[in-house]
């Protein structure tokens, strides 16, 4: 089963609040692969916006995004791109 993984850094000022969590989950759900975030020994399902919200990932949080499945590469790339775009909150 293909896997992909990379480090991401939360850069938007407000961190993973409700809307970014929802955006991330929606993005993750577009892929067949299972997608997780790894942070401080926690493994959080990236397709659950509620779980993402409980991570309390503030601006500057470094975590890993990991995917497993046929489209793992694309899933990780899409998630990383969304995080890097700061969820469109800031220019």
């Amino acid at each position, binding site marked *: 089963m293909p896997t992909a993984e990379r480090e991401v850094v939360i850069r938007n000022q*407000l*961190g993973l*609040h*409700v*809307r970014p*969590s*929802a*955006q991330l*989950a*929606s993005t993750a*759900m577009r892929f067949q692969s299972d997608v997780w975030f790894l942070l401080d020994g926690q493994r959080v399902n990236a397709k*659950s*916006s*509620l*779980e993402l*919200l*409980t991570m*309390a990932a*503030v601006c500057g949080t470094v975590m890993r995004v990991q995917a497993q499945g046929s489209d793992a590469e694309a899933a990780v790339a899409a998630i990383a791109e969304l995080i890097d775009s700061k969820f469109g909150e800031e220019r």
Partner: protein
Amino acid sequence: MRLSDLFGRKAFVLDLEATDRKGALRELVEAAKAAYGLTRLPVADVVDAIVAREKIGSTGLGRGVAIPHTKCETVKSVVGAFGRSAQGLDFNAVDGEPVYLLFLILASPAKEEEYMEARRCVAKAVLRPHFVKFARSARTPKEVEELFMEADEAAAPPKSADR
């Protein structure tokens, strides 16, 4: 932060009358206004602000739950109101399902951290097994209150159980 403090019984609307998002939000904002004595709260403006932000991205995060929220100058800290819709509301939720439970959060612009914590507090409770089922089926405000307190105790066990 405790769910049962944030969402006090006096700010429950267990039978929302509205069948649309905006109407339900108005009922909840009115409930918060009355429960916390926010006499200067501009209800219509607050509702418009929440709806505007919902349009950017829904706070319907799945499991039939939404956490609509906005900042208000007239609120001194962070307050919540809990609403329930029997037939479900179209909130454009991330999972496409109707929303049955609404956790409205209003916060002072000066309380950014507490504001974030409030939303996390709701998410943690909602993820508890059966929380949503019990919240939807509770018959009285007291039952809802007890459910919230149970979630609080699980999140922060009594001192004696510490470490």
